[in-house]
């Protein structure tokens, strides 16, 4: 890979636990410009925890997370896992998306004309124009998902993180989301947490497989080669929650070229 020199984000030997239960142990991971990283693994394996550590929403017990590749004013786009807020909250779609334009000031925060314009644009791009004034509580799962994506994109992010973005949407929308992300990835790096790689498999550049520790952090060749070749196979097994075995199993019978990826990372 050409841009493997300086990482945008560097995770070094990070451990984290909730109380006495270790959630992640000695995880190291780099994220590069133009990367499209899928963090996969079984439920409860620490995927979301890793994402929150990277985002700085959680503080690691040990190890370091740095963002050497970004300037101080970088914008982070973040699409949280589905139900992180109250559905009955009295806000319109537009109100929610406008939150993506907020800054860090404690005091005055007015909505500027530019904020309004950018919000109108992004609502249009995501086909949400008609829902603009609708209360968020009345949206379907897929619609709400698009609102969350609009809120993440309205700040013109330098990097985009999505946590289980396809869990609550129908197959048609999954495909649309996937192609939209591929399009966005031409300009910014994308990190997606998912327990179901199916919808992203053809586009992701790297895979990080997390189950308490990082079992596998695969290169681009996997995405373009092995993963494409045996499309259905890893998908099935990943969905069943033993991804580290998937890649080893998968390497054994047919795709010999994959072996070195899974062996000693």
């Amino acid at each position, binding site marked *: 890979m050409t841009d493997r020199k300086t990482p945008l984000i560097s995770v070094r030997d990070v451990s984290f636990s909730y109380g006495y239960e270790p959630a992640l142990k000695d995880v190291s991971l780099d994220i590069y410009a133009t990367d499209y990283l899928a963090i996969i693994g079984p439920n409860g394996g620490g995927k979301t925890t890793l994402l929150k550590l990277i985002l700085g929403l959680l503080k690691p017990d040990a190890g370091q997370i740095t963002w050497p590749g970004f300037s101080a004013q970088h914008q982070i786009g*973040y699409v*949280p896992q589905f139900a992180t807020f109250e559905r009955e*909250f*009295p*806000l*319109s779609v537009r109100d929610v998306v406008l939150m993506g334009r907020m800054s*860090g000031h404690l005091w*005055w925060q007015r909505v500027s004309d530019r904020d309004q314009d950018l919000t109108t644009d992004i609502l249009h791009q995501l086909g949400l124009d008609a829902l603009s004034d609708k209360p968020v509580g009345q949206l379907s799962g897929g619609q709400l998902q698009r609102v969350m994506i609009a*809120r993440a994109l309205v700040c013109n992010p330098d990097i985009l993180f999505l946590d289980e973005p396809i869990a609550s949407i129908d197959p048609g929308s999954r495909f649309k989301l996937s192609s939209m992300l591929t399009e966005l990835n031409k300009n910014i790096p994308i990190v997606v947490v998912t327990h179901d790689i199916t919808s992203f498999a053809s586009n992701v550049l790297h895979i990080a497989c997390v189950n308490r520790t990082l079992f596998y952090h695969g290169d681009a060749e996997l995405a373009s080669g092995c993963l494409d070749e045996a499309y259905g196979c890893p998908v099935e097994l990943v969905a069943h929650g033993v991804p580290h075995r998937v890649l080893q199993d998968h390497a054994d019978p047919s795709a010999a070229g994959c072996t070195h990826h899974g062996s000693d990372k």
Partner: protein
Amino acid sequence: MTGLLAALQYDFMQNALAASLLVSVLCAITGTFIVIKRLVFLSGGISHGAFAGLGGAYFLGINPFLGAMFVAILSAAAITRVILRQSQPADATIGILWATGMAAGVLFVSITPGYAPDLIPYLFGDILTTGRTQLYWMAGFSMVNLLLTIILFRQLVAVSFDDEFARLRGLPVGAVLLILMVMNSVAIVLMIQAVGIILVMALLTIPPLIGLALAAKIRVVMFYAFISAVLITVGGLLLSFYLDLPSGPAIVLLGAGLLMLVKIVKAQSKM
């Protein structure tokens, strides 16, 4: 209406009416945030915990409401810390605050030498005995709350809605949350005068729930909450005056009735 005008000849009724309006402002703002951010139980903890301050101040011979205010703000800050750190489940902490506050309050009052006071007005409120000084305090704090809410509206809403996202936007979530909690605890103590420690939760929840039943925009919700709070506090006041009922329970039951009515009418209109 004529009943109200007749009653207003009395000084104490004028005070009580002013107190009703101020309490309505507070519960519209504070209550709406408390309901949408699901802080109702926490508010119960703060109001009951404040009884420790009330009793302590009584023991020391100073204004009981200042004592309650002091303890409420302190506990709001402590709970904010717990929420931000998530080192332990906040609901257990709230439960401890709740019971310990009540225990300490009763203990202070009982060891105070002299004539034992009647605790019922503190527990269930007595808006008809609101004094001038009390009213000035309420007016002052209500204005501060209102002003802070206007200045910080977007930030307060963003942090209430999704604090993780707010943090990623660079918002000082801890500071905003602390301001929200302190505003809430100040409002709660001021409302104790009207409905008392035990019933304050009703006044914090019923008007916002009526607002939420009628509107889907947060400012409009607050407006309806204000209107319904005025209706039930003034209505409760008049019931209390004319039928010689305790004002706190009159206000709360009137509120519960109005909420039920609104819900029924809403359900009917949907069919």
